[in-house]
């Protein structure tokens, strides 16, 4: 019995020490974001002399934070909604109509998930550059729709297969056409998968740097990762506002995480086991 208890204790101590290690980078940046650069360089572990929010005001203005935040918000939400709509519709057709062409397209989509982004990046920029479609938010949304569709379709496909067709037949008899049947009967049943895809796609698009850096060229279109990068390149000497900028960028995500932690973690696990 005593051995059991010691074991319990060791486990607990170990896991909390590890947790502190894991979270220390964030806590140190938070702590030092309230200090001046000199204070930080002198001793990064000391508490701030006084709570100083000047760094935050500075970062907020220099990053044009509100604008970038809105850009990120619009980009992420519009792209995610589009991915969910078009993928669920495609998956529905693939499940219900077993035409040869459908199976071929579906197999192509699954195979395409293995292609690294870097393999598509250069021709993508070449093609859309030639068409003069770069530096355009709509182009970026269109691209997210293209890159997001295979995984979302695949995930919806697996779920729709399990929905009994009798429900739809009843709706057809009641005079619904195919489109009405899908949106009134099938789509509402997809809620659990939609949560999974929202979680995965929002995290992906919100944090994505490389694709938007190739498409959005003008500063007023930048999303948060692009702004952070530009901010660090322009003001690399004064550390404190940079740290405040990092905290500003992280905060919205952390707030959402605190509110919807369980849904987010469940979404990640379900997405991984697909």
């Amino acid at each position, binding site marked *: 019995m005593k051995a059991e208890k010691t074991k319990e204790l060791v486990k*607990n101590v170990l896991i909390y020490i590890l947790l502190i290690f894991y979270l220390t980078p964030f806590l*140190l940046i938070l702590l030092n974001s309230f200090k001046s650069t000199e204070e930080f360089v002198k001793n990064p572990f000391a508490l701030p002399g006084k709570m100083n929010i000047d760094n935050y005001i500075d970062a907020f203005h220099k990053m044009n934070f509100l604008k970038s935040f809105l850009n990120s918000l619009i980009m992420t939400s519009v792209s995610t909604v589009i991915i969910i709509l078009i993928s669920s*519709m495609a998956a529905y057709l*693939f499940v219900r109509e077993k035409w040869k062409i459908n199976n071929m397209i579906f197999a192509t989509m699954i195979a395409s998930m293995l292609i690294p982004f870097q393999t*598509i990046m250069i021709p993508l920029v070449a093609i859309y550059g030639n068409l003069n479609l770069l530096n355009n938010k709509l182009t970026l949304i*269109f691209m997210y729709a*293209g890159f997001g569709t295979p995984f979302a379709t695949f995930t919806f496909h697996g779920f729709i297969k399990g929905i009994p067709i009798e429900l739809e037949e009843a709706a057809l008899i009641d005079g619904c056409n195919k489109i009405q049947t899908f949106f009134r009967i099938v789509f509402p049943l997809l809620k659990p998968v939609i949560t999974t895809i929202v979680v995965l796609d929002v995290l992906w698009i919100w*944090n994505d740097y490389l694709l938007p850096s190739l498409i959005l060229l003008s500063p007023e279109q930048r999303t948060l990762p692009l702004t952070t990068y530009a901010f660090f390149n322009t003001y690399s000497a004064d550390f404190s506002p940079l740290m405040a900028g990092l905290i500003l960028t992280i905060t919205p995500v952390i707030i959402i995480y605190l509110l919807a932690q369980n849904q987010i973690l469940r979404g990640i696990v379900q997405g991984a086991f697909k």
Partner: protein
Amino acid sequence: MFFVIPALIPFFAVVIVPFIYGIYLTFTDWDGISATHKFIGIRNYVSIFKDPDFISKVYITIKYVVFTVLLSNIMGFFLAYILTSGIKYQNILRAGFFTPNLIGGIILGYIWKFIFADVLTKVGQALNIDWLSTSILTDENRAIWGLIVVSVWQYSGYLMLIYIAGFMSVPSDLLEASEIDGATGFKKVWYVTIPLMIPAFVICLFISISRSFMTYDLNLSLTKGEPYGATQLIAMHIYQKAFSSQEYGTGQAEAIVLFFIVAIATGIQVYFTKKMEVEA
């Protein structure tokens, strides 16, 4: 048709057409600007395999991938093991370890740049630890470890979630049966739990291998490939070839090689781990 067209147009225009056009580009000498380009056969492929710079980037990338995959899976498995062994506040701990995965590579890289350059060096100086007193990011031989540390720190919390699901999927009556047969602690995990959670290993290895081969954001913000290109991974090398040196054909040939490396590595991994699956 109405159902599938809206998905097909972006999918083909953004993934399939560029992929095929990209394969074509590797057989040309296009510089990204001129209106015409010549067909030059497989010269781009020959030249990248003769390019010591590219070969060294492949080597650096493989080293980075091997250590990142091994260490993040060990760490993720270990965290999952402790968290599923009846510890209190399991959910809060789980959420805490996952946190780095909510944040993009660019921002994580900048956070750790401060930690490596200004915090750990202070710790090293205060405790008189030589190897910590100078930033590891400025040392040609050690800088890659900075990249590995951050990746392991991030991915292990992600993989932990999948391993937790794996541990929970092991039927408790089997564990009890093994206890009656005399299996304890380590033996129980090795002979009963691990064989039954192979699906979790398949997924975790797949995710960690494919992601670490494609690492770019973190590479850019943490080290920018410095010092002297010692931490430049393939993904960044491709970017530079195409968009800085305007060698689109060569850059794209490297990108196709990356595609094959990832496909072969994950293919072999999935084949061998799937073979180990057992029925409960």
